[in-house]
């Protein structure tokens, strides 16, 4: 019995060692992939940091209102970008490494991931850009609407912001291949709703402004000149 146990144990150990020996080159290849991708990630992180600094990205994004002013000094757009680029390259390296393993399941999973991850990353990038652009649009629309004297300026600015966010989200989801038909229909309904709400807000909030603009542009239109029109020149301020 001892002999049998010993034989079975040795056979198993031999099989295990043979399996490890078979697997070892692919494991080493995977580790090599991971190590190379880590090096690449460090290099790309440095490149992204230098590129951001050259573009003065932090200052510009704060200036445009994309990134909050005076937030946590430990976080900045540059730091976020360098972290994202580092971990993305490292994750891709790990997926490549998994595909090198002599394991059909691991290879299949990694290949599927490698196929999908770039689309997902581009989708996330599209959404992030849309969120940033939406903030710039919101601030510009808010200032413009206030200067036009619209009482619903905040509502209009928020509407403009969400239009851009929704558009970005729809494009990002479509690019990532998530629920394409549902997203298209939902986006259409929401977009139409916001545009309708904005039209109402602009129409109700700026009717006086539009009337004044039309009056300035077509001064001869309408009824004959009355006392109010005669006084109009004296009732205006010339800024320049």
């Amino acid at each position, binding site marked *: 019995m001892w002999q049998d146990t010993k034989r079975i144990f040795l056979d198993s150990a031999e099989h295990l060692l043979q399996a490890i020996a078979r697997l070892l080159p692919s494991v080493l290849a995977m580790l090599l992939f991971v190590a190379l991708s880590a090096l690449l990630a460090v290099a790309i992180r440095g490149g992204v940091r230098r590129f951001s600094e050259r573009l003065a990205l932090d200052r510009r994004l704060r200036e445009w209102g994309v990134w909050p002013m005076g937030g946590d000094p430990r976080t900045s757009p540059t730091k976020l970008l360098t972290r994202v680029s580092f971990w993305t390259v490292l994750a891709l390296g790990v997926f490549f490494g998994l595909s090198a393993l002599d394991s059909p399941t691991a290879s299949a999973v990694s290949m599927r991931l490698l196929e999908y991850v770039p689309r997902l990353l581009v989708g996330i990038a599209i959404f992030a850009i849309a969120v940033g652009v939406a903030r710039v649009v919101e601030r510009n629309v808010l200032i413009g609407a*206030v200067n036009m004297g619209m009482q619903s300026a905040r509502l209009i600015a928020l509407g403009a912001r969400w239009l851009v966010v929704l558009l970005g989200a729809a494009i990002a989801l479509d690019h990532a291949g998530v629920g394409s038909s549902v997203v298209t229909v939902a986006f259409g309904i929401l977009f139409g709703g916001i545009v309708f709400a904005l039209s109402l807000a602009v129409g109700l909030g700026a009717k006086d402004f539009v009337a004044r603009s039309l009056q300035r542009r077509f001064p001869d239109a309408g009824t004959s000149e009355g006392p109010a029109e005669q006084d109009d020149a004296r009732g205006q301020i010339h800024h320049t």
Partner: protein
Amino acid sequence: MATAGSETELVDVDSPDAANTAAVPAPKVGAIAGHSSAVVREAVRLGAPAAALLSSAAHDESLDWLGLLLQPILEAGFDYVSPTYLRERLDGMLNTAIVYPLTRALFGRRLRQPAGGEAALSLALARALLAQPVWRQDPTYRGSDAWLVASVLAGPFRACQAWLGRWPGSAAQAEDASHALARIVGPVFQEMERHADRWQRVEGSEPVPSVGQAGVIADGPSTVDIGALEDAFRLGLRELGEIWGLVLPPGTLLALRRAAAAPAGKARLSDALWARIIYDFAVAHSTRVIERQQLLRSMTPLYLGWVRGFVEDVRELDGEATEARVEALCGWFEREKPYAIARWRWPDSFNP
């Protein structure tokens, strides 16, 4: 240097020969970018002792306006003559509210209409302007009114102003306040940054020599709707308060809230507060707290809020009393200059 839709003319006063007169078409919008440098270059090439950068709008023919403009250079040895016009009390409001008091407080010289879009230059000044590297560095900025005036006032040049009668008007369509602010005040703030080492050493102000008859056109009482100006200020404070919070210190914001909380028809910004606001926005423009066009356009409700008080003050005043009111505003800009210097040097320090 001409107003929109006009031409800029170079006049060689020594020679009536048409070959020595150059005309350069102005851009359709904005007036400035670059063409004045062509005129100045031509003046230097011709060796003209004086060159005038003029709008082609019809000037006041009851006066020898060209003589008034060029004589100070030809006969009195001035380098720069600023054309100045008789205007109604509420004309050129941006000049009255910001450009004149700010330029005067910064450089200590009382040029009444420094953003007029016209000028007369001596040959020495023309050569000095051409030698400045900024003509080559930034084509959209070179040759602006603010650049030219600041170059003159910050340099060793002799400046004076010539009153040329009634304002010839502008061929351009009237601009709304926010566009005018961004177009006119932006370059002035830029000049403030360029000459920071110079203006921080200037105290008070002195008159510049003038030729011609100064004054303001007598007009009747204005019917400007000050209620609309007040509403614009209140709306701005309600909606843009967050943006202003990035620019203005808490004490100024509090003063603005107090002004807005006044009963209808009573909200007004004091001159001292207005001067501080302008200095704060100039600092924010320099430190790029927010994008510059957004910053300048966000000033509009504040500007209208100050204009509301000014319109009320001068409603029943004659030209002389209106000038006294402007003089009081300029006094506040000069008195608040130490505040500007402190904010400029330490923009991030706590400032209640």
